[in-house]
């Protein structure tokens, strides 16, 4: 249900995603090149005052500044909070190099749908990053929903997590990693 993107209403600032120095990117440990701006300070930030370098803006700020930041397109990413749906970005998603989805609690599963919709409906091909409080045991499902980057905030060393990305080598239903559900892949006679 694509709708025109409209500025999100200002909302109370809840738990914010952190921006760890290292993350998992495409199945390997990598250093984090991006600076994620938390919610809250938007009023002070203008296109001119925005620090140089790669930066991930909250959706509301990005909606406000996107025209002015046109020349910096390659270094501007967006993060969506868990109550922000994929249609708020809509077809704009395609042009972004990085989109992050915030998991305020690992039990909040809205980001899974967000990931699939960005990939499958809005043609997003850039880095899709999970930020916030997801857990290692969700890496398989996150991967299946199209995430390829994980800014993990827990205590475990990232190397320990890599094995959990493929807890299953097959799946029953279609998702981003597997376009065909099992009933279309089985030899059915």
């Amino acid at each position: 249900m694509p709708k025109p993107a409209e500025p999100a209403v200002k909302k109370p600032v809840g738990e914010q995603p952190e921006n760890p120095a290292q993350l998992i990117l495409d199945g390997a440990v990598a250093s984090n090149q991006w600076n994620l701006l938390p919610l809250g300070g938007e009023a002070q930030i203008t296109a001119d005052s925005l620090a140089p370098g790669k930066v991930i803006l909250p959706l509301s700020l990005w909606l406000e500044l996107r025209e002015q930041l046109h020349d910096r397109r390659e270094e501007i990413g967006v993060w969506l909070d868990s109550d922000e749906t994929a249609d708020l970005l809509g077809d704009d998603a395609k042009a972004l190099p990085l989109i992050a989805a915030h998991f305020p609690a690992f039990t909040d599963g809205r980001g899974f749908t967000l990931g699939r919709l960005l990939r499958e409906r809005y043609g997003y091909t850039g880095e899709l990053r999970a930020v916030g409080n997801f857990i290692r045991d969700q890496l398989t499902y996150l991967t299946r929903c199209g995430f390829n980057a994980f800014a993990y905030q827990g205590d475990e060393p990232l190397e320990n997590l890599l094995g959990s990305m493929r807890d299953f080598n097959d799946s029953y239903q279609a998702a981003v990693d597997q376009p065909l559900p099992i009933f279309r892949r089985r030899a059915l006679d």
Partner: protein
Amino acid sequence: MYRYDEQDHALVRQRVAQFRGQTERYLAGELKEEEFLPLRLQNGLYVQRLAPMLRIAVPYGLMNSAQLRRLAHITRKYDKGYAHFTTRQNVQLNWPNLEDVPDILAELAEVEMHAVQTSGNCIRNTTTDQFAGVARDELVDPRPYCELIRQWSTFHPEFAFLPRKFKIAVCGANEDRAAIRAHDIGLQIVKNAQGETGFQVFVGGGLGRTPILGAAIRDFLPETDLLSYLEAIVRVYNQLGRRDNKFKARIKILVKAMGSEAFARHVEAEWEQIKDGADQLTPEAITWAKRFFPEPAYKSFTDGHGDAVLRDQAGEDKAFARWLERNTFPHRVNGYQSVTLSTKPTGIPPGDVTDRQLEAIAELADKYSFGEVRVTHEQNVVLADVEQEQLFALWQEARKHGFATPNIGTLTDMICCPGGDYCSLANAKSIPVAEAIQRKFDDLDYLYDLGDLDLNISGCMNACGHHHIGHIGILGVDKKGEEFYQIQLGGNSTKKASLGKVLGPSFSRDEMPETIEKILDVFVENRQPEEFFIDTYNRIGLQPFKERVYAKAS
């Protein structure tokens, strides 16, 4: 029944390995309690009052004798030698050790069983009519669709962390024996004018704190669109369902808040985007799924064959006649009948069976019913395909094992949750209330005279015992630390689904059997010939019951 292929086996084995790793990390202190919680719940593991509780999935209630024998073995080796059939057609163990659960799951996997998604905020085991495939009033066998839903929902990556648990029930018959309107999604199989198979779709039903009956959001969904439509519904719910308050997180609250028309519009808009995608069921897939539920090798009998023999046997043996009347169900194939084994003799918690009984059921299934059984949502077990000529022999054996209590559908065939005896959420015990009522109403003639009557008991408002949809519902409540019981009347889980109304102030446990008696007296005095309790209630309403029950002693 459905048989695993290599892919199913591999997936379930990988799940066992995954959970073994998670359990080890938890026991080693590497996985926090609150992180382990949803992981263990999605593997059926609760932590309960006395011990962990493990809920084992029985997809749409169907099991074979090898699986029953393995369950028997598991209850002996890892538990206290008994198991419990639930209202969601699953099996629960009440005393496993946390450390043993990965081994139990590994043993289950060998016989094509698991505990995947039997709890937690995900899509749970799909349930259906226990007489699926054999009932005379059936339009289409729902089991192939249930299996396709099982596959679609199992390890669904997008829907493993929903706002709340999510339950789907499917009914393929005219009469609703699956309580579909008490589910998050209820699917009624229908045929359109062209004779094509499809589904009427209900959403937003559920019991618990805020009981609501599902609303129809679509009258005909072509069968090929089953999975894409389910995906659309759950996707809308995952995005819009409330997460700020767990009591308001069920889809029923969302549907109620939006209105079912608005909710339906969202679903249709979402579905429009995906309906022609890969989730659309191919005719091959439907045919393939149907192939797992073939007609068993029925003998061919002529119409009326067996009836004469049964009449004679029943004429000679009153006890057999009673059992035949209450515990068997007509079959669509000549010369066959379905049998319900009652787990409700007086004094045994409804749904409880011992390891020996599980093995006895397996033997009966092998001998009399092509090696398969079904768990019913009333917590009994069905042998679906018994030759009429074998009923007498089966009855005698069932009696030896304590399964032939001829009370199916009567007052003493009650649904009852584990309540305060096992469940840490309970406000009151429920098993002793069930037992006290069974003891008081032990006269079979009286029970039969009352006719079909659903009595459902829950130990708290979570409503595991379906008290809202019992003709008589009993709910355990807590009053200043003391156990009391509230009575509701007029609930109904059939096509004419309704939710019970509270009769009035609650009662102590001692008062319960007598109060039930007063209610039954009002029914008996007011009923028209052959009328069932629910019909009398619908005719005369709550008031006469209220007056009698709360009458001041004069």
